[in-house]
């Protein structure tokens, strides 16, 4: 969902690009919850459809992982995977992001705060802000997360 996002997230630190750059040396877990491009219905078969997703280098991509309404199973899968990636360290810095005006990263940050993570950072500028000054890399959906999604 896109729309104007709040300026704060209780229990998390809201960071701008400089904040993220300063945090990078602490090797935060970068959680990208940007949506995957959806193939338009009736897209002609003879045309090339080849979506790619570029993100902050090192990011783990959870397409749709920030949806406002995640069913219990998917929410559990998201939290389980994050827990695995931080190896149970709930104080490890985590950055949630997608694109500007994308609520997904706010939602994901909120979920992590509620779960007891204390190092949550929300980067509302997302990929757009990052790529103004830094390169991006193509990333694939996180395999474990992808496996939990309905096909």
């Amino acid at each position: 969902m896109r729309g104007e996002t709040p300026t704060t997230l209780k229990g998390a630190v809201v960071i701008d690009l400089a904040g993220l750059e300063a945090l990078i040396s602490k090797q935060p877990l970068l959680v990208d919850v940007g949506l995957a491009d959806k193939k338009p219905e009736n897209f002609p078969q003879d045309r090339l459809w080849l979506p790619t997703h570029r993100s902050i280098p090192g990011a783990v991509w959870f397409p749709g992982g920030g949806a406002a309404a995640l069913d219990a199973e998917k929410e559990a899968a998201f939290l389980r995977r994050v827990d695995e990636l931080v190896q149970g360290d709930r104080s490890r810095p985590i950055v949630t992001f997608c694109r500007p005006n994308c609520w997904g990263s706010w939602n994901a940050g909120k979920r992590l705060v509620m779960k007891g993570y204390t190092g949550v950072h929300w980067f509302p500028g997302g990929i757009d802000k990052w790529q103004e000054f830094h390169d991006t890399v193509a990333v694939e959906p996180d395999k474990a997360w992808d496996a939990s999604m309905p096909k």
Partner: protein
Amino acid sequence: MTRTLRTVFAAALVTAFCGGSASATDPSQPDAGREKRWQEIAGYLFDDRDIVPTDTLIKIDAPKRAEDAALVPITLTMPEKDKIKSVYLVIDDNPAPLAAHVTFGPAADPGALQLRVRIDTYTNVHAVAETKDGKLFSTAVFVKASGGCSAPSGPSDVEAMKGMGDMRMKFAKGVEKKSSEATLMIRHPNFNGMQMNQLTRLYTPPRYIDKVTVSHGDQTVLDIVGDISLSTNPVLSFNFMQTDGQPMTVVASDTKGSRWEQSFQVPSAMH
């Protein structure tokens, strides 16, 4: 001496490392991932045909940073125009990378072409010229633009569809004898299927111009196969070899099966 050399060598290493590191964070520099992406697209579009980089056969003029990612003006120039059969415009990181394929007919002056496209994220844009002897030549620029594919076509879908298929054409004097310039505007939302209706929160179904043929008298000027990366209300500027007294005729069709045809009188004595 040895020590000095070693120091110089070490300094050179550091420079090389910093240089490498700087280019890795500067998106305007080619990187392996972007090249891999282009090779993958080229494989789909051109199979295993050779594509030779060129500085002379085709050039792209595009803003380094676009003001509006849904309306990015792109100009292609083909200085050795007599060799050119067709051109492909590819926006590497758009989900449907091929924006347009334009084939020139006998009434064309393939020296230049201008169109407007949507760009989804900072990306390389490639132009590929196909010569009459069947060879492919490519060039690329990096364009900073973001969000062009999901930007709505208008204040509402109904508004965006008003007058769909209406066309206008403007003419100007060409730079060379007998060559004139034309700018075609087609009213069409070119819905790409990635735009969300802000009221219903549903994606507007795709409906876009997929074919345009421009003729002058009974000769073809150009054929365009378009895709979802062409902007709302497509605008195309091109050159043609003018024959006085002959009209320009445009036939356009979209993916919902609509077809529009319109003829325009070309002002005589333009050159």
